[in-house]
């Protein structure tokens, strides 16, 4: 068996989700090749070659792949993928964007967001916002799969010495063009990779009040997340949303502040090791999943917590 893992990157740096995806590939077993498709990605390819357990790195360096537009990268991946038993990508917005297109080009079903490898053709994945876990088996010639990062411990980023090989694929399909990007700036750890996450919900009242969460997060070295209610109310940008339709996190410690705990939010954080809930409504559903619950006014409890840690 041979497995092709599609690297997550921004042309400059290798994305951490790649390491979790390689871990899933190791569970499947077989030679692992990593594809880096982008523009001026020499540095990313070098980083990919150092990943423990990677046998080969394929580099497709082409202006057409610069922003990983699916119209351009999907034909490349589908063509390369024919030579592999499995094609894996991280379940990031990028992976979710191009991989189903690859699967359809190969005329196979895709398996989304696996959290466990049972065997080379059988996998577990959550459905219904994580309220059920399905075990699915694939008979496809090429198994096309996205991997939920929080389901697999990252492999070491150093220690490998894979050969780097250039590959080429179709040129710009001419169907789409990148116009621009607006990235949120943050010095805090990335939400999906943070060991501690502090999240705020509608109970925060307004965007200004998130300051007390940022300040607590900085003391803990934590990332700051939010519920959909807080995002919809305009308190914080949408890339902070944790939940079924936002980011899936599984940190060591998740602190939910002023979050009631709707099914859709729980789907994004209930695999956290320890969950703390601070809410003044003692009937809030969040207390049913919290290891430690504190019924209190968050505007008193959060500053007090910051002082105490």
């Amino acid at each position, binding site marked *: 068996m041979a497995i092709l893992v599609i690297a997550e990157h921004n042309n400059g740096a290798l994305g951490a989700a790649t390491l979790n995806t390689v871990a899933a590939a190791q569970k499947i077993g077989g030679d692992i090749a990593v594809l880096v498709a982008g523009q001026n990605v020499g540095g990313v390819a070098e980083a990919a070659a150092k990943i423990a357990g990677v046998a080969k790195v394929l580099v497709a360096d082409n202006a057409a792949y610069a*922003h990983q537009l*699916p*119209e351009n990268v*999907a034909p490349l991946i589908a063509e390369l993928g024919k030579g592999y038993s499995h094609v894996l990508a991280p379940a990031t*917005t990028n992976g*979710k*964007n191009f991989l*189903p*297109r*690859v*699967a*359809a080009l190969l005329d*196979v*079903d*895709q398996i*989304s967001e696996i959290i466990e490898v049972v065997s080379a053709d*059988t996998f577990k994945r*959550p*459905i*219904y*916002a*994580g*309220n*059920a*876990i399905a*075990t*699915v*088996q*694939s*008979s*496809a010639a090429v198994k096309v799969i996205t991997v939920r990062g929080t389901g697999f411990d990252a492999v070491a980023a150093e220690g490998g010495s894979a050969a780097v090989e250039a590959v080429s694929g179709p040129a710009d399909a*001419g*169907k*789409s*063009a*990148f*116009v621009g*990007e607006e990235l*949120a700036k943050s010095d805090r750890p990335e939400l999906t990779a943070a060991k*501690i996450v502090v999240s705020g919900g509608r109970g925060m009242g307004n965007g200004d009040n998130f300051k007390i969460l940022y300040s607590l997060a900085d003391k803990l070295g934590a990332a700051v997340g939010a519920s959909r209610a807080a995002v*919809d109310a305009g308190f914080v940008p*949408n*890339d902070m949303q944790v939940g*079924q*339709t936002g*980011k899936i996190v599984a940190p*060591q*410690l998740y602190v939910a502040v002023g979050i009631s705990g709707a099914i859709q939010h729980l789907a994004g954080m*209930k695999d956290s090791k320890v*969950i*703390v809930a601070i809410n003044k409504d003692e009937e809030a559903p969040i207390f049913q*999943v919290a*290891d*430690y*619950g*504190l019924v209190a006014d968050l505007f008193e409890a959060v500053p*007090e*917590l910051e002082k*105490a*840690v």
Partner: protein
Amino acid sequence: MKVLVAVKRVVDYNVKVRVKADNSGVDLANVKMSMNPFCEIAVEEAVRLKEKGVASEIVVVSVGPSGAQEQLRTALALGADRAVLVESNDELNSLAVAKALKAIVDKEQPQLVILGKQAIDSDNNQTGQMLAALTGYAQGTFASKVEVAGDKVNVTREIDGGLQTVALNLPAIVTTDLRLNEPRYASLPNIMKAKKKPLEILTPDALGISTASTVKTLKVEAPAARSAGIKVKSVAELVEKLKNEAKVI
């Protein structure tokens, strides 16, 4: 231009689903069904395009059981002009649905196809992308803003670090994210009018497509339950527990 919108009948998002005792699936008997929330956003966007004079006709399509007629009627009440149901009682995977939608796209020749980014039952997030591959059209997934300009559509997409804008040649496929718009409610007069709008029923056989799948579900289980937690009385007690009992800070 003509806009095609795909909608799915799913378990209502407020329902806490239960896994069947024999682990064959989720118990959907006597459970409230609704239009998938992302599909509602797709219908709303199409209706807004029509109100702006960009869209001339909205065709809404569903691939699924006969019960999905209810969701198609809802879409008609919201402003769609006519509906098509590709009726199948089999459990269909995203690729099979994408193939059925491809057949409808071939028939209807829309300039824009709008779908939700994912259905809240299977949580696949695949159908729009697969339809784009099968038709060869460009795709704008996770859209939070859609602007048609001449023979192109500019789509602002929600990506992991923020927002990205792409320009797609028409015809194109767009999948909706939550913040694209706030769907309206159907008014009673419109619900009555929707009953008279045309609803065509087709079958996968009639469209000449196969619904066979390369993936089968072996079993469905409830997720591991979390052990019950405790309520602490003060911040001091919370910090003490986190430091000494859970050892996470």
